Structure formats: structure tokens, C-alpha cells
């Protein structure tokens, strides 16, 4: 695949603006429920997804907006879902934490930490054993999730059957209020790969090109039957765990320090330096995305809420005799 750097930039900006806007709308009580912001982690989904085909799969997390957008999601349907409208990706049944689009290969954001790992492994089994294609599955999860049993069971399983699954651990140094070194017994989560005899690599998760390269190698290997890889992308959660988090567990200074390393400004400087991006081009990109976002918000706001009776649909394909 030919790498279009401006495309990467655009995707990162899209994620940033979407989540910044989502936060704002949430604080205005326009979006109900919970929102987990991906701000500061955009380079990961962007760098990984640049290697994915439309028919590849991903499993996402509670912090899944970026994963969806990088896989090509429509902002209108996303925003409508966040609003709980019937026009959203899940007709309002999923919301931010369970947004998904199977046709895009997104097998679900997931409210259960580590819950996507078995799902990713299962998709890998279908690919390898039944469909026998060269599709791959990317499984995103956090540093916190790397302490769940599903991590262990999933990596061992993928290794044994040599499944085309790329495990991408987004180590943003926090699991909710918990500082990663206080609950995780390794400094580099990638070190755990050796327990499953698979390659493990740590990359700078705020460097979109580093992520791209690491993912490229792992995905190519997986496509060729070389089995799974564990990629740890080190980043930092610039926002609270969820929008509204009082953040008593860390200092403003610490957060400030990491803002200086955030991935978009960093990539932007590089693009400027290399003459790939100009102020004009930048304005063009931002304006385009802002417009797209405005449209998405308008779409969401103008859409209807689902009627109450919709609550009793979509559980089963065949619900004859079922008792709601």
C-alpha cells in the first residue's frame, strides 16, 4: 500500500476534532451516557489502519471513536449513534461505548475491558480455518486490559493456531484512575509476547509513522500466515478517563508535559518541515473536516429518537415465540 502522509494527517485531525466536539456536546448534555476520549492517541488507530483493507476486521474498546474513524466510519452515523438517534450505526441501541459497523469490519466497541480479545481471536479462526483468506484482524486494547485473563488466553490461543491477529496494546499509562506501573508487573507490555512465543514490539504511539511501520510488518506477516504479533504503542491519555472525570489521581503538570508530545502537532511539524503540508493545505483540511463534523452534528440533531417499540427489535434474527 502506498502511504499518503496527508491522508494520515487528515485522519488524525478528524479523530481529534470528532472527539473534541463529542466532549463539548457531552458537557452540553446533548450526548447521554459516557464518552471516553481518544484525544492524544490518534496516531495509533491511524497508523495501524493505514495498513488495513476494507475487508479486514478490528475489535475496539470503550475508547473506540478513533478506531472506527480510522477504519472509515461515517461521522454522521457515528454522531447520530452518540446522540442515541435511530439513524445511528446501532439505531441508538449501542451508543459511544458499543458503537460498531460489521460491514466496515468493526466487530464492536466494547464496554467490557478486554472483551474484544476473544472476539478478535474468533474472527482469526474463521479466516484461517474456514474462509482461508488473507484477511487480518486487529485487536485494540488498553494497558489495563493487558492484566485481564482474556489477554493471556487470547495471545496463547492466537499463537498456537498461528492466527492472523495483530494485538495492539494502547498503553496510555492509565487504566481509569490506576497508574499503569502500579497495576502492571512489566514496564513494557510487549515483553509479555515472549510468554506466547510471538513477536512483541514497543513503539512510540505518538509517532504515527512508527506505528505505521510496526503495524505494516506485523500485518504483512499475519497475511502471509506468519501468525500474531503484540504491538505495544506507548502513548498518554491526555483527557480524563471519561468526560467529566475529576482526575484526582494525577497532576495537571504531568498532563501538561504530555501535551507537548501529542501526536498531531508533532506530525504536523514534520510535514511542514518536509514541505508536504502548507498553512493553506492545513486550513483546507481542517475546514473540510469541520464542515463534515457540522453536518454530522446537524444530522444527529435533526434525526429522531427511536420510538419505544424499537426496544423490542434486533435481539434475534428469528424471534418467533419469544417473550419480550
Amino acid at each position: 500500500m502506498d502511504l499518503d502522509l496527508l491522508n494520515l494527517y487528515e485522519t488524525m485531525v478528524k479523530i481529534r476534532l470528532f472527539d473534541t466536539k463529542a466532549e463539548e456536546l457531552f458537557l452540553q448534555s446533548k450526548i447521554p451516557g459516557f464518552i471516553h476520549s481518544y484525544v492524544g492517541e490518534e496516531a495509533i488507530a491511524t497508523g495501524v489502519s493505514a495498513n488495513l483493507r476494507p475487508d479486514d476486521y478490528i475489535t475496539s474498546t470503550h475508547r473506540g471513536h478513533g478506531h472506527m474513524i480510522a477504519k472509515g466510519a461515517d461521522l454522521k452515523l457515528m454522531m447520530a449513534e452518540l446522540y442515541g438517534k435511530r439513524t445511528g450505526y446501532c439505531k441508538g441501541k449501542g451508543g459511544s461505548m458499543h458503537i460498531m459497523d460489521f460491514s466496515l469490519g468493526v466487530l464492536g466497541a466494547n464496554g467490557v475491558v478486554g472483551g474484544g480479545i476473544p472476539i478478535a481471536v474468533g474472527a482469526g479462526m474463521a479466516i484461517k480455518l474456514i474462509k482461508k483468506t488473507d484477511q487480518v484482524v486487529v485487536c485494540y486494547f488498553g494497558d489495563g486490559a493487558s492484566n485481564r485473563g482474556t489477554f493471556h488466553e487470547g495471545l496463547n490461543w492466537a499463537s498456537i493456531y498461528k492466527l492472523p491477529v495483530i494485538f495492539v496494546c494502547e498503553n496510555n499509562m492509565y487504566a481509569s484512575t490506576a497508574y499503569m506501573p502500579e497495576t502492571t508487573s512489566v514496564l513494557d507490555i510487549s515483553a509479555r509476547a515472549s510468554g506466547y512465543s510471538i513477536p512483541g514490539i514497543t513503539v512510540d504511539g505518538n509517532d504515527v509513522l512508527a506505528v505505521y511501520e510496526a503495524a505494516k510488518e506485523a500485518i504483512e506477516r499475519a497475511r502471509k500466515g506468519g501468525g500474531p504479533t503484540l504491538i505495544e504503542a506507548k502513548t498518554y491519555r491526555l483527557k480524563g478517563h471519561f468526560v467529566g472525570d475529576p482526575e484526582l489521581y494525577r497532576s495537571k503538570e504531568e498532563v501538561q508535559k504530555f501535551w507537548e508530545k501529542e501526536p498531531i502537532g508533532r506530525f504536523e511539524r514534520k510535514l511542514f518541515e518536509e514541505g508536504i503540508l502548507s498553512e493553506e493545505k492545513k486550513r483546507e483540511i481542517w475546514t473540510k473536516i469541520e464542515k463534515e463534523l457540522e453536518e454530522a452534528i446537524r444530522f444527529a440533531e435533526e434525526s429522531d429518537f427511536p420510538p419505544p417499540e424499537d426496544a423490542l427489535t434486533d435481539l434475534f434474527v428469528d424471534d418467533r415465540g419469544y417473550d419480550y
Partner: protein
Amino acid sequence: MRELTFAEAICEAIREEMERDPTIFTYGEDIAKQGGIFGTYKCILGKFKGKIIDTPISEEVIYGSAVGAALAGARPIVEFHFADFLFTGMCSIINQIMKIRYMSGGQGKLPIILRGPDGVARAAAAHHSQSIETIFMHVPGIKVVIPSTPYDAKGLMKTALRSDDPVIFFEHKRLYKTKGPVPEEEYLIPFGKADIKREGKDITVIATSRMVLEALDAAAELEKEGISLEVIDLRTLVPWDKETVIESVKKTHKVIIAHETWRRAGWGAEVAATIYEEAFEYLDAPIKRIGAKNVPHPFSPPLEDAVIPHKEDIIEAAKEILSF
């Protein structure tokens, strides 16, 4: 007619459907090399290369992977080894398998079968004796099959294997070796259709699984005393066949419900409460509910017998109900 054991009938259904549908594959612990610990995979031993797979002892992935496999286009039959170990991967079942289609707003389909043994064997004690079908009747999102005869097991398994919804299929350990007629010709049994295993006029006995056999034994004994039991085998609990039950109740005016799972808050309570709701004026006496005592399963045979229900409990209940 040809006779098969319960285990053979299940195996035949799986074999026939695997021959028909190349997307079916099956995995679990200890199934590939010995044909399953209860012989349910004997007839496919060594067949369907690469599609009968022994897995690690990693239940959260055994169950959760079914979601990914199904969404990626396969049709997994997942063995749960012992119903007791459903708890080991319960989050994958209840929070993923049973919710993801609904959360997605009805995207895709989830043709997943969880199957395996439940119930008491003999002195297998608290970790290998449980019947937990009620949990899956309570929490929405899966169809629940719990047959009592080889004929029903085969027909229901075939229906399950053509269903596009998740199904959990409970096979009682003490039934595996029981024999019964199974025609050579293909047949399917729809979900939600109870079977009147014995017609009668005095008391309706509603049961599933092993307790159907106990009820039939009780009926045979009581017949000598001039008491006529109608034995209804629900066969599926989600959906369950209210109509057949209510019709019978309107005829007999007296009801016994018998299951091996714990009596307290067992599915018998739901069926009883529903009968009262829909046929209150037809009832001559309170419904008798029979189930296990509310303790774990003890190891020692006399204790085990004291905890689980037997035909004697049905006989006693019948006499009590007639003298109400």
C-alpha cells in the same frame, strides 16, 4: 425404527449438518482425539479435517471467540465441557454472545451453538453437576434447548445448526447412554414447541431433560393407582411453549413442574407464575414445584440423592396435589 443413543443422535445431527454446511466447525476441550468425553463426537472422529479442534483450557476465549467466528462468516459449535465451566467464561457469553447483535442494532447474525453436558453424573460433586439453564432463560439473548430423548436431541440440534441466533444446548450426563428411536430420514424440530410425552387427564407434569424420564416413570407407577399424569416436555425454554402448557392445564387443573436445577428461583418459578397469570381460574390447587435442594451438589451418593429430585418426589407431589 432404528435406535440411537442420545450421544449418537447428537453426533449424527452434527455430522449431517457439517456435511451440508462447510462453514460449520467445532472446538472445545478434549473433543478431537477421543470423540468427546461423553462420546458426542465419536461419529465424526478423524473426519472434517481441521474443523474439529482441541483447545487450551481458556474458556473466556472458547466462548467469546464464537462471536468473532460467527461475524466473520463461520458457524461455530462450541463445546462447554461441563455446564459448571460456563461460569469460567460467563462474561463472553452473557455480555458478548447474548448482547452484541442487539447492541449493534441488529447488524449481522450470530449462528453460534454452545453445547455440552449438564446435570448430575454420579458423585461428581459441586463442580461437575450443575444445571444452570435458568440463568439463560432469565438473562435475554440466547435460545435454550434442553432435550430429553435421542429423537428430540437430533431434531433440535439440526434446527440449532440452521438457526441464525445463538443457541445453548444442554445435554444431561445421565441421558447420553439412553436409547431411543431415531428415523433415518431427515427431520427438524422447531424451537418453542413442547412435546406431550404422555397424555393424561389428572395432573399436568411439566419437565425437561432427565426429569422427563423421571416423570414418565412416575406416571407409569401412578397409573397402577388410577392416577393419570400428562407429561409435557418443554424441550426449549427460550422460547417456551406456553400454549401447549396452558391448554393442558385447562384440561387437568393441576400442575407439577419438575427440574433438576435448584428449586429456588429455578425456571419452574417462571412457568408456575405464568400459569397462574394465564389460567388462574382453572387451577384447583397450588402448583407443585420440584427441584434440587438449595445447596451445592455433595459428593457422597446418599447425600447427592437427597439433594436432587427423583420420580418419588413427583409421585409424592401428585398425591399431595390430589388431596388438596
